[in-house]
């Protein structure tokens, strides 16, 4: 029998009885053929691969990351508590040293969910990785974490959540926002004042194939990780870069995904998007499982795989080289860039519009990041949705100094609730959530 070189925990929870709607890409059938492939390959019988059920996440877990408007219960379904719970279980099994690595094959996905949640956008309501990670930090103490988002779409929600957090390096590579939802993820989205340079976007041209993805990995992601030295690497493992994916335009492959995971060597992977449910997911998931478990994956490929047909053009190759160089240099130069872009500011303000495509809600928000030389600083969000909500949300970050803790609480106390439909305070130092 085959033996895994790395003990691997698998939380495989296809939620066969849950869908956004019956013909939505995020429907019951999504992981059916992946299950068939995993079962037929006999993954359950591989020594060193252990299957876990999800635990069920709690309301409190959501409140560490999100401001659900009006509250958690009215925005989430059981499937969200389970999807997040699956990821938490995966992380716990690694931290508790039951396994070396783990992969949470859960749905629905989460990387488009921002801090404020009015509803579903890009099939996401809660940010699975972020809720998982903050629960683990709460339970196990501080850790330095890198999240590598390998989904074809920009991980705009994860970017929003870790925008001002230097202890969570976020790197997303994705199809260029000028050509694909959600239309963000450009190079100059570089992080908040306390984490300038720790949010890295790598927009790639449509048609990028194995060569391009692996080039970016080797020449940008891995060198940055080498310098950042994270305690934990998380792969936000979307699978929609695949050449058969119906809603994107890339040329990535199952073999490429396996190779990427082998080289990236993540501690935890969490499934994100990927909607080529027959032609891609069964093979990509198999590839990721084998690569993470340290089992030979050289024989994993799609039935219709044709390397030559999927070869990216010379122009794309050249373009990616240039983009990679720019991004890596910006990382190296982030201190100077911070001084240049943010010197002397007391606070940084950021206003934007967020569209919830799945639920058709439009949100306008202004974020304010206070600059504090002792901590990451209190930050606030004023947000208004066309659904009639008008909220004010205050966050005291995990590393807040005593002044900032006081400042956050005062702000909450002094904000008259009749000016807003809802006022929230997220005190991460004391792990308390208030709302009025």
């Amino acid at each position, binding site marked *: 029998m085959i033996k895994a070189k790395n003990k691997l925990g698998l939380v495989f929870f296809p*939620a066969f*009885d849950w869908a956004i709607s019956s013909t939505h890409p995020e*429907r*019951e*059938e999504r992981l059916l053929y992946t299950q068939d*492939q995993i079962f037929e390959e006999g993954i359950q*019988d591989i020594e060193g691969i252990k299957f876990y*059920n999800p635990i069920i996440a709690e309301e409190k877990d959501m409140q560490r990351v999100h401001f659900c408007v009006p509250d958690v219960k009215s925005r989430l379904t059981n499937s969200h508590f389970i999807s997040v719970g699956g990821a938490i279980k995966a992380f716990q099994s690694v931290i508790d040293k039951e396994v070396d690595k783990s992969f949470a094959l859960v749905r629905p996905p989460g990387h488009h969910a921002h801090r404020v949640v009015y509803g579903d956008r890009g099939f996401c309501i809660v940010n699975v990785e972020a809720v998982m990670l903050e629960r683990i930090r709460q339970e196990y103490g501080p850790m330095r974490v890198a999240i590598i988002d390998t989904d074809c779409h920009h991980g705009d929600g994860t970017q929003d959540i870790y925008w001002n957090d230097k202890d969570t390096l976020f790197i997303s590579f994705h199809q260029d926002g000028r050509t694909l939802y959600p239309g963000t993820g450009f190079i100059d989205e570089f992080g908040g004042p306390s984490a300038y340079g720790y949010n890295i976007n790598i927009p790639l041209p449509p048609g990028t194939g194995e060569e391009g993805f692996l080039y970016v990995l080797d020449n940008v992601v891995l060198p940055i990780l080498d310098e950042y030295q994270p305690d934990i690497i998380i792969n936000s493992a979307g699978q929609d870069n695949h050449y058969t994916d119906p809603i994107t335009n890339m040329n990535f492959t199952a073999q490429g995904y396996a190779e990427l995971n082998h080289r990236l060597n993540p501690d935890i992977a969490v499934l994100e998007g990927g909607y080529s449910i027959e032609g891609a997911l069964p093979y990509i998931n198999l590839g990721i499982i084998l690569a993470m478990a340290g*089992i030979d994956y050289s024989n994993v490929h799609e*039935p219709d795989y044709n390397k030559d047909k999927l070869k990216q053009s010379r122009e794309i190759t050249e373009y990616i080289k240039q983009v990679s160089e720019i991004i890596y240099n910006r990382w190296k130069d982030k201190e100077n860039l911070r001084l240049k872009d943010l010197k002397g500011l007391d606070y940084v303000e950021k206003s934007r519009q967020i569209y919830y495509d799945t639920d058709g809600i439009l949100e306008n928000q202004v974020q304010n990041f206070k600059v504090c030389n002792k901590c990451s600083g209190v930050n606030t969000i004023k947000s208004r949705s066309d659904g009639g909500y008008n909220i004010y949300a205050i966050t005291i970050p995990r590393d807040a100094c005593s002044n900032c803790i006081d400042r956050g609480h005062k702000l909450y106390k002094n904000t008259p609730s009749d000016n807003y439909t809802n006022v929230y305070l997220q005190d991460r130092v004391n792990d308390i959530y208030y709302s009025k």
Partner: protein
Amino acid sequence: MIVGLDMGGTHIDAVIIEDGKVINTVKKPTNRDNLFESIWTTLEELVSGYDKSKIKRINLSTTVSTNAIVEGKTSPVGMIIQSGPGLPHDFLACGDENIFISGYVDHRGRVVKDLDTNEIKESIDLFREKNIKSCAVISKFSTRNPTTELTIKELMKKDFSPITMGHTLSGKLNFPRRVFTSYLNSAVYDTFNDFSNNIKKSMEKESIYAPLYILKADGGTMNLLAAEEKPVETILSGPAASFMGLNAMLNTDKDAILLDIGGTTTDIFFLADGVPLFEPLGIKIDNYKTLVRAIYSVSIGLGGDSSIDIKDGKIKIGPKREGYPYAFGGPKPTPTDAMIVLGLMKDGNKEKALQSMETLGNQLNLSVENMAREILDTMGNIIKEKIDKLLYEINSHPVYTVKELLHGKKIDPKLINIIGGPANVLAPILEKKFNLPCYYPKNYHVANAIGAALAKTTTEITMLVDTAQRILSVPELEVYKKIDKNYTLNSARKKAMELLEKSAISLGAKKDEIEAEITEESSFNMVRGFYTSGKNIRIQAQVKPGLIHELRGDEND
């Protein structure tokens, strides 16, 4: 009259049951060099003096196939394996010759790449050259589309027999297990068929015309004809015999723990609402994980004759048996010695038992009696710890729906049923440790044979309906049928029950004794583009193990 016979590693038990009562029993040692001989002499002795024409059926639990596998006395097998892309395949090479051929079928059963018949011709030449007669043919996803296996068999059938096709053994998805199960089926085919021919001849000679059934590891039976075709299904039926015996003597419809405590081992089983728990995929034999359906049973090296040592000030019982208990002339102190010392057992040399407890007690500064009590208490602890661990594992088995995760069945035992030598001694101890009532029968000595005798025919099917491709399939029955594209879950249910019943009858079940049920079902909307292209319906159905009739009389406590 029903005859039941259970062949174990050391001895054979046989019983005659009439009107629910055991009217005769025989126990004989097993002659490992001639299993047929052992069975036949036991049967002859059992039925001599009885009217043979009144025997309605004979149920046998035999180790013929098991022994052949464990002792490596199997036929050489030529394997043809189509493994396609995926896992590396070297580990599947279990035959004497293993040919990995090209071609591939995908998860929907579409032939992505055809097989190359030249490769088959080369395989045929090689097998003939090596004088191999038995073959097995397995392709990945053959349950979804058996064409490859059928084509290859067609090409080979004039030169080889048996040729086991993977899809005929189980409809479950697990390619490595399908390969190993197919291998084993061909490997034990000759051994089992020799045995069955001998039995048939001898029965004819003795004018016994009762139908003969063979016990399977799932606690049910199949007729001899079916066993000849799929002898792999006859492996490891021993635990199933004792499980059925336990059920015959102590019936319950609750969640329960079942224990068979013997001389060397303790076998552990579980019931969920009175229905046995099964191995999720199949039983493991030797180093082979198979798709042979089996009752979930775990054996631990702990029994009345387990040898006892003191290690680091702690009592260590088992897992080995090093001979008879000390009181019966054996080399080591055992739990049996402890029971003799405490007056819980009458047999054996009490002097020697006392001696053995004294030797142990001296090391722990315990009196002879206290030493003996500590030993029995430790036995109880070992069993409790193991069962707690198993229950945790069972209750955390993977589930795939929100409903099951939130509201799925968890096993919560309400009682313990025990058979075996030390049952009456351990029952009060376990009762305290588990805080559950423990029951044991007065007479357990032929429980296995009773279990074999009363076991009904069982079977299981796996159905997949793909209305986009307009196919209904039940691989283990070799059913691949064209259906209407409006086929519904309801029609699938009906069809599954109908096919299940038919299958049970062909395995020897009587129509009125069949209790068929659907154990799992799901129906998925298949959407391509923005439109529903069809339904993907999956059904698992079974005839679960059960007793031909209840046991009456003084066997029950």
